[in-house]
């Protein structure tokens, strides 16, 4: 079972849940949690540490019956060396986090587009969960496991796995 843990997330989660259920062919549940996000906040950068969030998830915040846990948030995430991240995951691990903050057109001064935001969030959620299942970045430009550092790259790839990644996923 995959658990979607939402916090500080303003959007609608049900469609994401059902799409993930189709992609991974497993039960996906949603749980809303009240986290004290100050522990992850960096005052100098006004951003939240994705690594600290994952560490918190790994250390007992999540129920043990979930094989994978994906935190979904609307906070602006970072890791120390990088200016931002869309999300982070532990390779072959149990936990991952994904943020809608920089996936939203309004962040780039463009008109809101809820459909695009939903599509981007789905792709990043599938991508980070893929890492927790042991998938590495893929060179196929249309595969969801292709590394994306800009939203344009997210828009280019599909929300599905390429044949090779699908094969690897089936073996895991």
């Amino acid at each position: 079972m995959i658990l979607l843990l939402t916090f500080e997330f303003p959007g609608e989660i049900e469609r994401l849940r059902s799409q993930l259920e189709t992609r991974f062919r497993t039960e996906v549940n949603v749980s809303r949690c009240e986290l004290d996000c100050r522990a992850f906040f960096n005052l100098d950068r006004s951003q939240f540490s994705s690594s600290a969030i994952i560490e918190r998830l790994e250390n007992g915040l999540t129920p043990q019956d979930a094989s994978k846990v994906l935190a979904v948030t609307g906070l602006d995430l970072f890791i120390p060396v990088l200016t931002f991240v869309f999300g982070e995951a532990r390779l072959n691990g149990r936990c991952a986090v994904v943020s809608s903050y920089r996936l939203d057109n309004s962040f780039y001064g463009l008109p809101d587009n809820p459909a695009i935001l939903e599509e981007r969030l789905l792709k990043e959620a599938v991508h980070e969960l893929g890492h927790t299942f042991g998938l590495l970045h893929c060179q196929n430009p249309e595969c969801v496991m292709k590394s994306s550092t800009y939203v344009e790259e997210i828009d280019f790839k599909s929300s599905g796995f390429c044949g090779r990644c699908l094969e690897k996923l089936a073996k895991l």
Partner: protein
Amino acid sequence: MTDQVSMLIVDDEPSVRDSLMHWFLPEGYRVDTADGAMQALDKMRDSNFDIVLLDIKMPGMDGIELQQRLREIDGQLAIIIMTAYASVDTAIQALKQGAYDYITKPVDPDDLSRLVRNAVEQRRLLRENLSLKEEIQSLISTDEIVGDSPQVREIIKLISTVAQTDVTVMIQGPSGTGKELVARAIHFNSRRRFFPLITINCGALTDTLVESDLFGHEKGAFTGAQYRRKGKLELADKGAIFFDEIGNIGLKTQMDLLRVIETKRFTRLGGNQVVNVDFRIISATNRNLEDAVKDGTFREDLYYRLNVFNIQLPSLKERASDIPLLADHFVRKFGAAMNKPFTGVDLGTMEWLKQQPWPGNVRELQNAIERAVVVGKPPLITLGDLPCPVDWRAPSISEDVLPLAEVEKRHIQLALEKTRGNVSLAAQLLDVDRATVYNKIKKYSLNY
């Protein structure tokens, strides 16, 4: 995965180390971390890394000093320096000491990914370059010059001596003695070996073609010159140029060459931009150039420019003791190329090979063996496999006294067969002039 990229992240901040490790693991890299200089040096000694991401500001030994120490362990390591403090001075210092690049934290994810990808590619190219250099080294060496006679040993010694310098070399010797092989051995044992060796066959140079061929031309220099084209002299920059059969060039080309050899600069045809080149000159000829200078067909000043270090190659007859080594070498070489498991030449045939005059020198011997490998049956080359007339190999012993004219006819016939109908060489063998040979061919109605 054998070509998996390995990365070492060195930072005293655990959150930086861990987050970077988790960032790069999904790229498929093997990632390890070190909390400071000592741990980094220990890990470098125990394991190979392709890339090091190195924090510049750490307690104890800082990143700049650690970079130097890491380089002592692996000179080709791609080091990317990270710092939270943008400082041009430290960036310059790091780059001067050979860092691949320098980033200021925090960095855009795309920039970091691209930087690391480029560093990986550079490291791969560096390794490929080194292995290709090693391959070149192993492919071309003086080992290709086969022989154990005093003459060959002396030539190898001369090649080793002159290869280390930039001295202009002239190689003289009869046709087929391996002048080009010696030129290649000199070049590929010199410090210029990783730059081109451009061969110019002077026999094929006409005064009209030479300018565009040697100096290149600019676009529009003449009808049909649609693009700028580099000449051979320009292509040889930093390498060497080999003028084969230098004795065959015309007087105008001699003058052009003299000017370039003296100044190492020229302009392309139709252009006025001066091109500076740096090349070593090796030339070869089978002519006696001193005679050519005396009879005015070769410029004296060019001759002295080219003949700074002279290497004289002996004919095969002069080093007949090398024939068994050469024959075995060619049998192995052609046997391997044609996938025929020859082990050598049978004893009687080898004796016969040693007694032949080989007017075409090593090239002729090589051709004979190549032909024998084609038609022969392994494991040994026999007399019947060799490309020569039957009566030449085993002259019938006859008690009959033949008329003198018949003896002369047969003897001239034999000389022409041995030299494949080359009248000049036959005349040399018979110790008469060419006109005499032509007269005898006509007199005895020989088919040559």
